[in-house]
Every structure is written in structure tokens, then in C-alpha cells.
């Protein structure tokens, strides 16, 4: 269901005006021309107008000076777009009385998912009527529509008949074909373009065919700039994700201190108390914190914020205190800290379980998540990682690094022939002696030492990823080699003699690199 508040800003202004006088002055205000304005660089501009001003010819987006020319006795009031948005958010939550979840459609709409819900209100028609009356009682002028897709409901609410209902079994394409192209929620410049092309109705887009639209708009990726994507969303051929409005409260505990703190030991004591409060708070909700924010407000008007992110949800106070201990080392208390606040902006479900106390950790060892937290707090987030397979045949791209407790993304990994145990961060160039330029290597110099090659296996030819790299990227011939002392390396020749790429153009021999060390 799409709810369009046709005159949201105006209705809100009236509500705010009439609230103190209990609607006494309402009629007078309605008949007098009124405009809500914002100050812009070119003077005040009109954001919204009421019905009587509209009748005179005052339009939104006009300059106030022009409007005064049309209507000298126009009354003005400042507009409040942020307030309107906040109101809309409240309304979106409130509109969940008609469905399980709702999404904002700024600046003046709300989308509610009413799938399989209408029968509770006596059918779609009755539901729309009820919604309109209820919203009307709040003083909001609305246009409503129900359709199988969000796009279609939006189009019908804005451009369709009053309280339009489009059922899943109806022929949506047919019903919507008479609506103007503006019903596709396109950007103004695209609308202008379509108008210049002579495409006025959605039906016109069907006539000219998909291929034409596809070709004309292939560089426009954003849905709001591509009529074809919008058309498919309208008819439900491609999904359109909506962001539901969700009410969340981040758990928050704080201590106001009678005497400003200047010493670390006292601060630790306060943090300890807060951690315990937080643990209780989180336990009540059955959650654990993934991210914590400790705010310290100083007497002299500064605030210090320390953030902490955990590898797994936790609410163990001892663990939290330990992690914050290191973060508080460099806090400058100034003239003292008067307010300490702990907030958990990111929580995850954590069922009740036996607590992992420091004493237990001392005796039986810490859990893996706790251990990783301790490591990341001291060493940084990018120091502790887990190698993960990546779908690539190129050696250095065959593994990616992830956070240690993340689940693996790929289920299968590629089976490679023989890979070294360790890979250098970047291949190091070596000087190689060989019998023929594309033959087996005989001897090489790496990091100032000469290695005699006794055993060679290869080449294993690995081509560049043609879909990522330029056509000038060269392929590599890998050799697994063992030197006189049994040390085993993985080296490659960059490019093939005579492939006409890279250094071959200058006529020099291919370079060699050492990339890995074998077990």
C-alpha cells in the first residue's frame, strides 16, 4: 500500500497552528492564501502552498517576489523539511497498524507491506477507506493505492484514480499504461528527455520496445535514471529492495559524577560499574554487544569518545573492562571528567550462558572470541585475520583475508597442483641463468646469494585474469625448484619470449620473479 500525503508540509503547519486554539482559527487559515517558504541564495522560495493560494496561481518552487506579484496579501511562514521528515518517520511506524513493516518514501510518502493482510480489514477497498478516514482525522490529505509492487502502488497513488486497487491477477501492464511517465519515479532530467522524445504515457514505452530503451539508457545505472529498470520494477520483473523503518534503542548506561575525576584508578572504577550495568541491561534483553562506545565528558567542555568492536557478541564485564583498559591509556582528563557514558550501538542476540570470568580464564584459558578481542585491541583490526579462498586461479588472488571469526564465503576451493607454504607479499625480482630463454632455469641470484638449481618441475603456465586486467598483462610460467641445499622456491618467468607485450617490445628478455617458499 502506498500512502501519499499530498499536502504534508501544509497539513503539518495547520496542525501545529491550530493545536493551541483547538481548531478555532482553522477555517480562516484555510481560506487565506498561505505559502511556506525557505530562504535561498536568490531570495525566499515557496515550498508549499494551500488551496486558496493555489487557486490564485501561486505554485511551489516559485520565488516569493513573483508570488507577491500575483497575490499581494499572501501570508508566509517558514517551512520545516526536517520536521516533516521526522513526522513522516513517526507516521511510517504508526502505519504499521496496516501491515507488518513499512518503509519511508521521502519526501511525502509511506509504503506499507500489506501482503495477506487486507482480509483482516474487510478487503482492500475497505482498508483503503479506513486508512484515508483515520489519516483524515489527523488532518492529513492523502491519496492511497494498493498494488502488487511498490512501484505500481506509488504510481497509482500519485497518478491513478482515488483509492485504486490493483490485484495480482489483474493485467497490471494494461492498467498502468495510461499513466504518465512521471509515474515511473524518474529524475526530472530523464523526464524532460522522455518528453522531448515524445514519450508521454507508460504505454508509449511498451510500444517502442525493450531493445530501444536498453540501448538508449545503457549508460544509466541508477534505477531513477533508467526507465527500463523502473518499468521492470513497476511490473515486478526485477526486485526492488526497500529499507524498512525499524525502531531500535541502543542500550545506554551512564554515571554523572559529583566530583570530577582526574585519576585513572577512579576512572577504571567507574568504567567497571558501567560495564556491570551494561551487562545487566544486555542480559535483560538477551543480547550481547558487538560495538561499544565509551564517552567521557570533561568539565572544560570537551568530550572524548572511545570505540570498541568485538569479534563476537559479549556482555562479560571483565572482558569489557580489560579491553577498555588499553584504550583509556591516552585519555587526557584535563580539569576532570564529570560524565561517563557507555553505549552499545550494535548488539546481537546472545543467549544466556555460563559467564566467562577472569578467574575462569586464568584457570581454564580464554575463549577464542575473547582471545581475538584482546589481540585486536592491542594490534589493530587488520593485524588479526584469517586467509579465505577466493575464486581466482591467480596465486596472489587465490586467497583473501577476512576477520577471524567470519564464516567462509566460498564452499569449494580450487584444487591447485602444488602451492608454496608461504607467499611473499610482493614477488621479488631475481636474476636467472638459463640455457635458452624459454627453457629451464639453471641458477639464480636472490637477496645477494647465488642458488644453484638442482631440481626443477615446470613450467605451470598461469594466464592473467583476462576479465580484470588489460590485454597487455603477461602470462607467467611457474617453476617449482630446489637448490643445492634442499631449499625449495616457487619462481616464475613473467611473459613468454616473443609475445609482444611488456618488456618484450623493447627486445629485452623476460623478467623472473620469486614468489613463494615451499615447505
Amino acid at each position: 500500500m502506498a500512502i501519499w500525503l499530498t499536502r504534508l508540509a501544509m497539513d503539518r503547519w495547520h496542525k501545529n497552528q491550530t493545536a493551541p486554539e483547538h481548531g478555532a482559527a482553522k477555517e480562516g487559515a484555510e481560506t487565506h492564501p498561505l505559502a511556506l517558504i525557505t530562504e535561498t541564495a536568490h531570495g525566499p522560495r515557496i515550498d508549499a502552498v494551500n488551496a486558496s493560494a493555489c487557486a490564485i496561481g501561486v505554485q511551489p518552487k516559485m520565488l516569493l517576489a513573483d508570488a507577491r506579484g500575483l497575490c499581494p496579501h499572501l501570508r508566509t511562514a517558514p517551512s520545516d523539511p526536517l520536521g516533516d521528515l521526522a513526522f513522516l518517520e513517526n507516521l511510517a511506524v504508526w502505519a504499521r497498524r496496516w501491515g507488518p513493516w513499512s518503509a519511508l518514501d521521502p519526501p511525502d510518502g509511506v509504503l506499507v507491506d500489506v501482503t495477506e493482510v487486507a482480509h483482516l480489514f474487510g478487503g482492500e477497498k475497505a482498508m483503503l477507506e479506513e486508512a484515508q478516514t483515520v489519516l483524515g482525522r489527523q488532518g492529513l490529505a492523502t491519496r492511497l493505492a494498493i498494488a502488487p509492487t511498490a512501484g505500481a502502488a506509488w504510481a497509482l497513488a500519485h497518478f491513478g484514480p482515488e483509492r485504486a486497487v490493483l490485484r495480482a491477477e489483474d493485467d497490471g501492464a494494461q492498467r498502468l499504461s495510461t499513466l504518465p511517465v512521471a509515474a515511473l519515479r524518474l529524475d526530472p532530467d530523464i523526464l524532460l528527455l522522455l518528453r522531448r522524445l515524445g514519450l508521454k504515457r507508460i504505454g508509449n514505452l511498451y510500444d517502442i520496445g525493450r531493445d530501444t530503451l536498453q540501448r538508449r539508457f545503457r549508460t544509466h545505472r541508477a534505477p531513477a535514471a533508467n526507465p527500463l529498470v523502473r518499468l521492470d520494477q513497476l511490473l515486478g520483473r526485477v526486485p526492488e529492495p526497500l529499507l524498512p523503518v525499524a525502531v531500535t534503542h541502543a542500550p545506554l548506561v551512564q554515571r554523572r559524577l559529583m566530583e570530577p575525576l582526574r585519576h585513572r584508578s577512579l576512572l577504571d572504577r567507574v568504567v567497571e560499574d558501567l560495564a556491570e550495568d551494561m551487562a545487566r541491561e544486555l542480559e535483560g534483553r538477551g543480547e550481547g554487544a558487538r560495538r561499544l562506545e565509551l564517552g567521557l565528558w570533561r568539565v572544560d567542555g570537551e568530550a572524548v569518545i572511545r570505540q570498541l568492536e568485538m569479534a563476537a557478541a559479549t556482555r562479560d564485564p571483565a572482558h569489557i573492562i580489560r579491553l577498555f583498559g588499553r584504550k583509556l591509556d591516552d585519555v587526557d582528563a584535563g580539569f576532570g571528567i564529570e560524565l561517563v557514558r557507555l553505549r552499545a550501538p550494535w548488539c546481537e542476540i546472545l543467549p544466556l550462558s555460563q559467564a566467562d570470568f577472569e578467574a575462569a580464564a586464568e584457570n581454564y584459558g580464554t575463549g577464542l572470541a575473547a582471545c581475538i578481542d584482546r589481540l585486536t585491541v592491542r594490534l589493530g583490526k587488520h593485524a588479526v585475520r584469517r586467509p579465505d579462498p577466493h575464486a581466482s586461479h591467480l596465486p596472489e588472488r587465490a586467497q583473501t583475508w577476512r576477520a577471524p571469526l567470519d564464516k567462509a564465503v566460498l564452499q569449494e576451493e580450487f584444487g591447485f597442483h602444488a602451492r608454496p607454504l608461504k607467499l611473499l607479499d610482493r614477488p621479488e625480482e631475481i636474476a636467472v641463468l638459463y640455457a635458452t630463454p624459454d627453457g629451464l632455469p639453471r641458477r639464480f641470484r636472490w637477496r645477494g646469494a647465488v642458488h644453484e638449481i638442482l631440481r626443477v618441475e615446470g613450467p605451470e603456465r598461469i594466464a592473467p585474469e583476462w576479465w580484470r586486467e588489460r590485454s597487455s598483462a603477461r602470462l607467467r610460467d611457474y617453476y617449482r625448484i630446489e637448490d643445492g641445499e634442499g631449499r625449495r622456491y616457487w619462481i616464475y618467468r613473467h611473459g613468454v619470449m616473443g609475445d609482444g607485450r611488456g618488456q618484450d617490445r623493447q627486445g629485452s628478455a623476460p623478467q623472473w620473479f620469486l614468489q613463494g617458499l615451499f615447505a
Partner: protein
Amino acid sequence: MALALALDGMRAEGTDLNSSHDARNILWVQDKAAIRLSGRPYRPGFPPELRARLIHVAAKTPEDALFALEEGLRCRDLAFVIGEITGNPKALGFTVSRRLSVAAEKHGVPLFLIRLDARRDLSSARMRWQMHSTASPPSCWNAAAPGTASWRAELFRARAYRQGEWILRDDGKHLAAHSPAAAQKDHGDLADASGDGSLAQKSNSA
């Protein structure tokens, strides 16, 4: 040289792990110099049973690396901890190495500390090895190709074992040890030497 030692740790506990089919993770700590010298662990080159379990820590300084090692040893969910530290940093004195061995013994997490390019100095490790790579036996399929990796390992300090020198070789199932003098098959399967969890092992390399 660098690679030969890196695996030594692996090798020894590789056997240990195969026997116990647990899904505990392993921690691999390297300091910055060790990464520059010998590179980072590369997952496709790992033994398949260890691939999914590796957690790698790239520490900037030896101090950070030692901190990470100690935290790793305290963690009950780790199968073993490998550390790679280059040279003889001041931070790794006798006291610290004693701390590490005590933590390893207390929590039963084996530590394999690899010292790249280091001199032999004081250490409280239970077993101290000097590892060198050595020529591998010819591969049975391709005589010109490198065969299974081999090491010449010298046990130069250990509390409960005699000193000695062996040729170690991982044949996929366990670590086989041969006497270096002759090709005679020695009974010495090193698994029982390194298998009793709590010993901290050090290998030095010149």
C-alpha cells in the same frame, strides 16, 4: 633457509593434528621482519586439514608478537601456536621465554617458536632444534622434480632427550626420521617425541 624452518613447526604438529580430529584453530604469529623475510602463510599451500583453521597475526614489533603468542597460549580453543620472530630482539629474553613455556605447559597449548636468522641464546624451551633444509629424495614420478621436503634437524638442547641429529621427512602421514649417517631406516618416529602436547619447542637457524 627461511622456508625450511617455517614448516618444521607445521610438520611436527601436523602429525599431532591428524590423529586428533578436532576443529580447533591454529594461531600463526609473525613479526614484521619475518613477513618481509619469508612471506605470509598461503592457504592453498597448506595441508588440507589445516587450511580452514588458520588465524594469522601480523605484529609490527617483536613485543607485539610475543604478546600475541602469550594470549594465544592462554586460549583454550587453539590447537597450537606458531610464532616467527626474526633475529635476537631484546624483548625475547630468558624471562619472556620462561613465561611462554610456563603458559604453554599450564594451558596445554603447544608453542612452536621459529627464530629466523637468530643466534643461539638463552631460552627456556623444552626442546631446541636447529633446522636446515637438505636435498630431497627423488620423486617417484619425475626424477627431475623436487621430492618430499626433507630437513636436517639437530636437537641441541632438550630436557628429557638425548641430543642428536636426524633427517626428517614428512611422508604425508607422519614425520619420519632417519639417521643422517646411513640410509638405514631408523625406528625413530618423531611423533612420540613431539606429541606430548605441553612441550614448547624452539628451533634456531643460522
